[in-house]
């Protein structure tokens, strides 16, 4: 017996409902049941995850979903959430799971940072009339360039990856999301001359055509990693940690490991795909160096190697170690970053905000005079183009986004990716669900999103009197804090508004 009421209530306007049954056909959670006798529909509300699929597809707008207004006795200490979680664990005896990012009402530093604009003493620049450059080159840079007498470079640059926009699509593995979702992302990346990221699930053969736009990941499970795979991307990314769940690996249940997933991951069909918490060949920083150089050897030093770490308390020192170990690109993932599945306790409690982590990493690398050698990519709850601008001004070269592109593909943030029943065809391998996601349509929507953000970035740059994104990088004078403490301002390296 369960102790708690359903989380959501399904409201059906009987006047409007024509009993077409679309909702019942669409719902993989089996919420809507056709009552043949009465010729009506009813709802098993305890199954509802509020994914909004039925609401969006109901032809007569007869449906809406609301939070159950039922309330426990008011208690600011033992909140409803806290009580419910205890009840759930008492029933199951298991670890609580969540998906997507941290939903807690923690402060957003991006929202408490304001941007500058030019007035009188220098002109703002109109991006519709003047060039406005958002191109970025990722990869290791020498401290200085040396030329021969004829003007040619003495030494060739280490491998660089050119992006037309400072936004990449972050790691989402085949297994955690569907092949159609990955295809949509790959095509969008190609369209916008940026990169998508295969995640740690290997690479499906259908994506090999997009290998010039792929970041391929090497994580602790080493799924699908072989020489061919390593050479199928522009960047190789060693995933050490993920912002949503620093300190642990991933787990794709055997039910999701169908034929295709098994091939891409090179594991037997139906077996759990478990990524260990650490890389078992990296127990220390010098081990990381060996892995970085093994990967470079395997790819003939033609690809930048990136190291992705979760933003944890001593992230600045770790970041510095990674750069010295040979990372060409450093990815920092904040604690609000998304995931297909993570233990709730970790998701909500481990790690630090990306804004603070980024600011302290950038400053630390500058204090050590090595910031210019490496590219920094930050990720973990970038909500809009203003967040991108703020991240770059704090010190990033580019950002990764994932939740936003999922939303562009239909995700309504129901945060139940781990069930594998995604009605939008994203976080599922069920064929009847994945075919709902047409890459022709959703590649365009994702590309639209990237282009829209880039337009907005150009407008904001122009307002600041800047016409190339590199002049924004680390340009913290363009930022002011609002409602932040002295300590927060010091860590962010910005002044308060009005100063």
């Amino acid at each position: 017996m369960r102790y708690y009421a359903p989380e959501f209530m399904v409201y059906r306007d009987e006047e409007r409902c024509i009993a077409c049954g679309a909702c019942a056909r669409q719902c993989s959670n089996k919420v809507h049941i056709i009552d043949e006798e009465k010729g009506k529909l009813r709802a098993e509300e305890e199954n509802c995850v509020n994914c909004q699929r039925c609401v969006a597809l109901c032809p007569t707008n007869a449906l809406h979903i609301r939070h159950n207004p039922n309330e426990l006795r008011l208690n600011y200490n033992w909140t409803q959430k806290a009580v419910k979680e205890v009840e759930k664990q008492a029933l199951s005896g298991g670890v609580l799971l969540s998906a997507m990012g941290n939903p807690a009402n923690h402060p957003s530093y991006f929202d408490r940072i304001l941007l500058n604009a030019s007035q009188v003493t220098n002109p703002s620049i109109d991006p519709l009339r003047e060039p406005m450059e958002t191109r970025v080159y990722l990869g290791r840079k020498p401290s200085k360039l040396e030329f021969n007498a004829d003007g040619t470079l003495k030494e060739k640059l280490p491998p660089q990856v050119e992006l037309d926009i400072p936004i990449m699509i972050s790691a989402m593995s085949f297994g955690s999301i569907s092949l159609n979702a990955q295809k949509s992302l790959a095509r969008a990346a190609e369209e916008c001359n940026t990169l998508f990221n295969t995640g740690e699930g290997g690479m499906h053969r259908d994506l090999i055509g997009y290998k010039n736009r792929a970041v391929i990941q090497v994580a602790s499970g080493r799924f699908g990693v072989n020489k061919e795979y390593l050479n199928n991307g522009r960047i190789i990314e060693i995933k050490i940690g993920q912002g949503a769940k620093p300190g642990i690996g991933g787990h794709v249940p055997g039910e999701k490991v169908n034929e295709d997933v098994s091939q891409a991951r090179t594991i037997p069909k139906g077996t759990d795909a478990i990524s260990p918490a650490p890389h078992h060949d990296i127990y220390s920083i010098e081990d990381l160096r060996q892995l970085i150089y093994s990967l470079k050897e395997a790819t003939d030093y033609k690809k930048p190697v990136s190291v992705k770490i979760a933003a944890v308390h001593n992230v600045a020192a770790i970041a510095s170690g990674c750069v010295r170990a040979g990372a060409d690109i450093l990815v920092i993932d904040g604690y609000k970053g998304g995931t297909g599945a993570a233990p709730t306790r970790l998701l909500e409690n481990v790690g630090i905000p990306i804004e603070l982590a980024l600011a302290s990493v950038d400053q630390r690398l500058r204090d050590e005079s090595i910031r210019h050698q490496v590219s920094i990519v930050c990720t973990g709850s970038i909500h809009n183009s203003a967040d991108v601008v703020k991240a770059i001004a704090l010190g990033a070269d580019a950002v990764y986004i994932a939740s936003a592109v999922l939303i562009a593909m239909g995700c309504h943030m129901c945060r139940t990716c781990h069930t594998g029943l995604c009605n939008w065809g994203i976080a599922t391998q069920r064929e009847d669900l994945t075919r709902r996601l047409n890459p022709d349509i959703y590649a365009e929507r994702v590309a639209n999103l990237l282009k829209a953000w880039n337009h907005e970035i150009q407008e904001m740059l122009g307002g600041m009197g800047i016409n190339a994104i590199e002049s924004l990088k680390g340009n913290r004078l363009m930022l002011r804090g609002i409602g932040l403490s002295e300590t927060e301002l010091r860590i962010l390296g910005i002044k308060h508004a009005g100063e």
Partner: protein
Amino acid sequence: MIQKEGQVRIPSGCAISGIINKKGKRFSGADIIKSIALMHERSNGLGGGFAAYGIYPKYKEHFALHIFFDCREARAKAEEYINIYFDVETAGIIPTDKTSNIKKSPCIWRYFAVPSHIKLEEARMAEPELTHEEYVTRHVIHMNSEAFPGAYIFSSGKNMGAFKAVGYPEDVGEFYRLEDYKGYLWTAHGRFPTNTPGWWGGAHPFTLLDWSIVHNGEISSYDANRRYVEMFGYDCALQTDTEVITYLFDLLVRKHGLTLEAAADVIAAPMWKAIENMPEEKREYYTALRSVYSSALVNGPFSIILGFDGGLMALNDRLKLRSLIAAEKDDTLYLASEESAIRRIAPELDSLWPVEGGKPVIVRVEGE
């Protein structure tokens, strides 16, 4: 309390002017004063200054340190330091005209000095490659930091000097009696700061070693540039555009060995669209420069005249958001924010053209 440069960032508009004789013939400061005086309306009396090259032939092997002292104690402390780290050939007060419009002058001294032989050798134990220039740079940056309140080195090159003050530039020229000096290259600056208590050190040109910069503009890449050069040991104590641009040139040219042309290609880089359309070799060159030195790109409006030993470079931002005119007459090249400031001293010209955005005009004195 109103804060001075270094405590706050003060944007300002300006007038600039420059004259160089390509044959290296030296001439007095009279013309440059006339030229900058014509652009009186572009300044507001809160800062003016000049840089002159070739003025100290007798001491051309010595670094000429020009220093402002607020008080006797500041000078005593600074001199104690200088006497340890430098061998001073001669020193004295810089002659000024007390009857001019410039008031409230600090004590202004100059020292002709070379690095102390002993201290240099000592430093070379740790850094065998340490050059005289780098040695001087470090001590100048150190002395201009908060360690020496009341003392400020505003010029440190060889056979050149900066002269600046709070006031209109023409009055500053008269105050320093620039008509008595002879140089082959002169630059001038009149300042229109938006707020300042009027600190002499904050007037322009800004100089370091032989570099001097006069600049009109307000760059929007300031903090990106500042945080970049500070990785290489510079301290942007004044928080001004001119200071950070000087350090960028010093880093790129003196420390990294780029040519002036390449440095201009970094600071006012061509657009990516233009680079894409270049032939393969050039494309590779510019892509490398722009991607490696991305943080040295200077953005927003600027027009600068960079003076150095044996020449000058005029450079405009790549969108040409500030006026800067060049003209030639016989062996002389003129530069100014306005054409009228050139015509004032050379009514008949062989040629005249606006400096193009992102395209440097470089003049080197023949035989140098």
